[in-house]
């Protein structure tokens, strides 16, 4: 037994030394490496990069597509257009909601039946809504508004909306428009 103790102590001392070596390499060596790489990259960019912005993200074709914001007209090429009166994300401590108000700019015409099909969110998720609005039933109203709950922090980028439009003759049919949304104002409410 007595003879074992010095051996055990020596073995413990060696494992401890090995552990310290690993800790120094990982715990100190990696941080030093990260800082040196940061310094190197900063110097590299400042001294050796040319005058062009080195990290400018290339803009995609998205910028050539119209993005709709408040005041824009949906179904502009159809006989029953709709104007976006209000579009925003309402945020509270408990939830996020997408609010949309549409107006019929030509009150001499019947309000077209509208169907909100779905919303594509920034995260890529699709919020399936499939809700119809027959706002003629409310009497002579020229606008309607609705809100839909959103996953926290996710805002819509595309609105899929259909509205009844007259086609040849007396027939009418639903025409769908893919509406790419611009910057949606986000408003915080204490409620």
């Amino acid at each position, binding site marked *: 037994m007595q003879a074992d103790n010095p051996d055990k102590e020596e073995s413990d001392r060696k494992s401890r030394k090995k552990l310290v070596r690993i800790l120094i390499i990982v715990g100190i060596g990696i941080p030093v490496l990260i*800082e040196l790489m940061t310094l190197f990259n900063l110097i590299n960019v400042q001294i050796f990069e040319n005058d062009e912005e080195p990290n400018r993200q290339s803009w995609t074709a998205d910028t050539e597509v119209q993005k709709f914001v408040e005041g824009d007209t949906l179904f502009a090429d159809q006989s029953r257009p709709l104007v976006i009166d209000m579009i925003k994300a309402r945020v509270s401590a408990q939830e996020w909601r997408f609010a949309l108000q549409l107006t019929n700019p030509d009150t001499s015409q019947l309000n077209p039946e509208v169907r909100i099909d779905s919303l594509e969110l920034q995260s890529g998720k699709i919020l399936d809504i499939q809700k119809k609005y027959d706002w003629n039933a409310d009497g002579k109203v020229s606008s309607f508004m609705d809100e839909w709950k959103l996953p926290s922090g996710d*805002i819509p*980028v595309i609105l899929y909306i259909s509205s009844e439009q007259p086609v040849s003759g007396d027939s009418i049919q639903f025409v769908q428009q893919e509406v790419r949304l*611009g*910057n949606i104002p986000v408003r915080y409410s204490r409620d």
Partner: protein
Amino acid sequence: MTFLNRYPKAAKVAKANFIVAFIALAIGGFFGFVQALHRTDVFRGFFNSGEYYTLLTGHGVLLALIFTTFFITGLFVWGITRSLDREPENMTFTWSWFWLMVIGLTMTTVTILGGLVPDSSIRAAVLYTFYPPLQAHPAFYIGLALVIVGSWMAGADWFWSYNKWRQNHPYDRIPILAFMALFTMLMWYVCTIGVSIEVVGLLIPWSLGWVTEIEPLLPRTLFWYFGHAVVYFWLLPAYYVWYAILPKLSGGRLFSDAMTRIVFIMFLILSTPVGYHHQYADPGISVGFKFYAMATTLLLLLPSLMTLFTVVASMEHGARQRGGKGYLKWIGKLPWDRPAFVGCALAGVMFAAGGFSGMINASMNINVLIHNTIWVPGHFHLTVGTAVALTFMAISYWLIPQLTGRKLKFKTLALIQPYAWFLGMTLMSNAMHRAGLAGVPRRTAEPQYSGFDFEPIFGTMAEMQWQIAIGGTILTISLVLFLWVITASWLAGEKSEQPVDDYIPEPLSGVEHTPKILDNIKLWLSLAIILVLLAYSFPIWEMVQDGIFSPGALPRPS
């Protein structure tokens, strides 16, 4: 015989303070973990983005105000008792300040956590700076006021001990451990004047509805009068450990008693009159006053550079006692297998890095580059988040055994903990600094914007976000290791009359070489007050002249 045996009453008080500190550390640390994952969009399932600001307030208040204050009071109870060799004068008074602080922190914490309860009217998502226009429940402010009053009483307790000691030692020099604690508290008294006026005079009446309008500039100014000096209230106890204990842990002795005293005096004088460097972007304060604050802030580098010299010299002395040779090879002879030493040493290294980014913050024009970006939290996670927090954790491995009479358990985990903290903090803080340079904002639950991309100088935003998340996770693991080791040691460590070697040798250049004028408390306190008056009276007078107490008045000059 260890501290517990010699001073059982003080040991009980110190332990009580440490228990509160560690509970605050655990909760605040968990909140930090959630934040790191949430704002980087790695995982947002714990809480929603509205609740993020409650977590952020909790993280800041529990760590930067509660953990620090209670650890400091526990540390100073130990230090004052040991160096003056006397238990507290009146245990009823001692326990009263402790319980007053606990009542205050409970009120404050309940109001913060109320923000996580749906439909609760008790909220305090005002962030740790808590200035208007953000408004909290009145109990938040009242609780903070009680914590501050309790801390004043704690300081009074230690001055009481000092005065009693002085009666028995009329010609002795103030023992160095007591000197550092007393000068830290003097600085605390000077700097808490501002925040007390803000909280009691402005915020509590406003939160109770007695005052309906409040002009943010004055509360901000009063907060930042306190807000920079408070970082020294945190830092000086870390320096306390580095000066008084780290040399011993290194195997050596403190290089110079005189240098130590000079540094603490400089912090007493210079800590408070620099607050405007947190208000460079505030309107309503003339640029000349901001420039004065910048100049005095840069002067504050001096005591820290002196500390760098003294502490490293002390460590070198210890390493050479252990057989170290050469210009740099002696570093290898330091006890890198001792958790208390490793934590303190790595904390000091990280503080140097924090000091460099602090110079950017302090420089008025360059500050604009990083104002309100995540660079700022990157900076203070190096300083308070590591220099202070890691030092406190590391020295707990040496202090707690003395207070409990039990040896440390899980020493291997204790050894891994500070290395893990250093790795995690480098990853996280490095990415925060880089992201800040790209303009990523601080205090924001979701700094990702549609139709806009940040432009990092090099690398990608995704890489930085992952670096923050991974760094934050490693820090959390390190924190769990610390709490596990301390709890296990406290409850089940092997009992011992001498659980650690708690002998602290005399400095190499001792008190006999220290000029007596350095012990002249009244002189240095008077100088501190004069500098504060110079720094703050003219700007506040200017604010009054500009109509800060006349709501609705025209801007001046009109």
